[in-house]
C-alpha cells in the first residue's frame, strides 16, 4: 500500500509534487514508526560508499550506485533478477513507497531513482535537500543498521526505451534539444574531466554539437533543495527556450548529474519525454569519429 504524499505547500506547484518529501514529513513518518515497513522504505544513496556507515537517518538502508545498481562486468545497469534481489533484500516490494536521499545535493539519490524508474517501480520519491539538509537541521542520525526482513520483489524486465538514451540514439538526436549539465569548463573542452574527478576523463573535450549548457546545480538552492517551479521555468523555458512537449536528451559524465536534471525536467516541470544518456561524456569523449563541438556556450 502506497503512503499518502507529502502535501507540503512548497511542492504543490511542481508537475508531480508526490515525487518529493520534506525533512519534516520524513521526521513525522519516523515518529509514527512507518519507516522500514512494507509500506515505506528509506534508502540512502551516496557517492562515498562509507558515508552511510558514518551515520544515517534512523531506519535508512544503504544502496550503492556502483555495487548494487551497476552490473559488475558489463558497463550497464543490473538486470531484472539482480534488481529483484537488491530490492527484496532491502524489504522493498513492488508496491512499497521508496524514499531516497543522499549526499551531493541528491545526485546519487536521483540516479538511483532514475534506475528504479527503468524498472517501472511506481512510487519512488526524493527527500528534498537530501542528507545535508537533514544534518543541517540537527535531526537524529545513527550508526545502527536496521535488520530487514527479506521480501519478494518480482523479476521485472528493464525498460531502456523510454527514459534512457544510448550513444546511437544521441547521435540521431543531434539538432534536437539536448542539455549538457556539466561544468562550463567541461562543456567548452578546456577540462577533460570534472574538477575533482580526474580519473573519469576522456580522450577528447567539448560537448555534443548543439547541446545547451545548463549546469545541474542551477536547479538547486544553496541548501540542496530544488528551486521553485517559477525559478526553474525561468532557466529551462524562458532562458533556454525548451518547452515541456520537447523531446530532450540530458547528459553529463557518467549519467549521475544528468539524472538530477532528468528529475527536474520530468517531475518538477512535467516534460513528457526526457531521456538520460548515461554513457555521457565518458563514452562520447572516447568514441571514435563522433562529432564534437568545442568552445564556451
Amino acid at each position: 500500500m502506497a503512503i499518502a504524499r507529502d502535501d507540503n505547500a512548497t511542492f504543490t506547484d511542481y508537475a508531480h509534487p508526490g515525487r518529493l518529501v520534506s525533512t519534516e514529513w520524513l521526521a513525522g513518518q519516523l515518529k509514527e514508526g512507518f519507516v522500514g515497513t512494507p509500506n515505506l522504505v528509506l534508502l540512502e544513496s551516496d557517492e562515498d560508499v562509507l558515508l552511510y556507515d558514518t551515520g544515517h537517518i534512523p531506519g535508512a538502508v544503504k544502496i550503492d550506485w556502483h555495487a548494487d545498481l551497476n552490473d559488475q562486468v558489463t558497463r550497464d545497469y543490473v538486470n531484472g533478477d539482480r534488481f529483484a534481489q537488491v530490492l527484496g533484500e532491502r524489504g522493498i516490494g513492488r508496491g512499497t513507497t521508496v524514499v531516497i536521499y543522499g549526499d551531493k545535493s541528491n545526485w546519487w539519490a536521483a540516479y538511483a531513482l532514475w534506475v528504479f524508474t527503468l524498472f517501472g517501480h511506481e512510487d519512488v520519491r526524493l527527500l528534498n535537500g537530501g542528507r545535508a539538509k537533514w544534518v543541517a537541521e540537527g535531526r537524529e542520525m545513527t550508526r545502527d543498521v536496521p535488520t530487514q526482513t527479506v521480501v519478494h520483489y518480482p523479476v521485472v524486465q528493464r525498460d531502456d526505451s523510454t527514459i534512457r538514451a544510448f550513444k546511437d540514439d544521441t547521435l540521431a538526436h543531434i539538432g534536437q534539444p539536448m542539455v549538457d549539465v556539466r561544468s562550463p569548463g567541461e562543456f567548452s573542452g578546456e577540462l577533460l574531466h570534472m574538477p575533482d574527478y580526474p580519473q573519469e576523463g576522456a580522450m577528447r573535450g567539448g560537448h555534443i554539437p548543439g547541446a545547451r549548457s545548463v549546469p545541474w546545480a542551477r536547479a538547486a538552492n544553496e541548501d540542496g533543495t530544488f528551486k521553485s517551479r517559477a525559478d526553474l521555468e525561468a532557466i529551462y523555458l524562458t532562458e533556454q527556450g525548451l518547452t515541456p512537449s520537447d523531446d530532450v536528451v540530458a547528459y553529463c559524465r557518467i549519467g549521475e548529474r544528468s539524472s538530477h536534471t532528468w528529475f527536474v525536467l520530468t517531475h518538477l516541470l512535467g516534460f513528457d519525454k526526457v531521456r538520460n544518456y548515461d554513457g555521457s561524456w565518458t563514452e562520447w569523449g572516447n568514441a571514435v569519429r563522433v562529432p564534437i563541438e568545442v568552445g564556451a556556450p
Partner: protein
Amino acid sequence: MTADQATAPLPAVLEEIAQDFVALSARDRLTLLLDFSDGLPELPERLSGHAELLERVEECQTPLFLLVEVEDAVPPQSGTVHLYFQAPPEAPTTRGFAGILHEGLDGLRVNEVLAVPDDAPYRFGLAEAVSPLRLRGMVAMLSRIKRQVRLKSAH
C-alpha cells in the same frame, strides 16, 4: 610496474593491516575501513589552517590534502618519515585510505617508504568492498607520498 614490485613485500605494519582486511568478509572490510576513517589523526596545531603547506591529492573525488615531513639524518635515506592528512568527515572512504597509509607508513625510514610497492593499495581486498574505481584515490595518495619523500630526502 615491474614483476619485482608485484611481489615485493609490504612494510611489517602495512602487511599486518592488509592481513586483517583480507581475513574479513567484504562487509566487515568496510567496517574496518570506517575504523581507520574515524581514527585518522587531526592535523597538529602548527599545520591546521595552513592548507597552503599541504599538497592536494587531485585524484581523490573529495578534497584530500597531505604533507610529508622527513627528519634530517645521515645518510638521508635513514631519515624518519611523518605523514599528515586532512579530509572532511563527509569523505570517509578517502579518510579511511589515508588512515591505513598513516598507520602503516608513519614513522618508517625514507628507504622503507620508497620501497613500498606501487600496487600496495590492491592488497587489502578493498576492490571488492569499495569498487576498483574508488581505489584509484589510494593509489594516487601513495604515489604522491613517495614523490614528496623522494624530494624531501634529496640532499
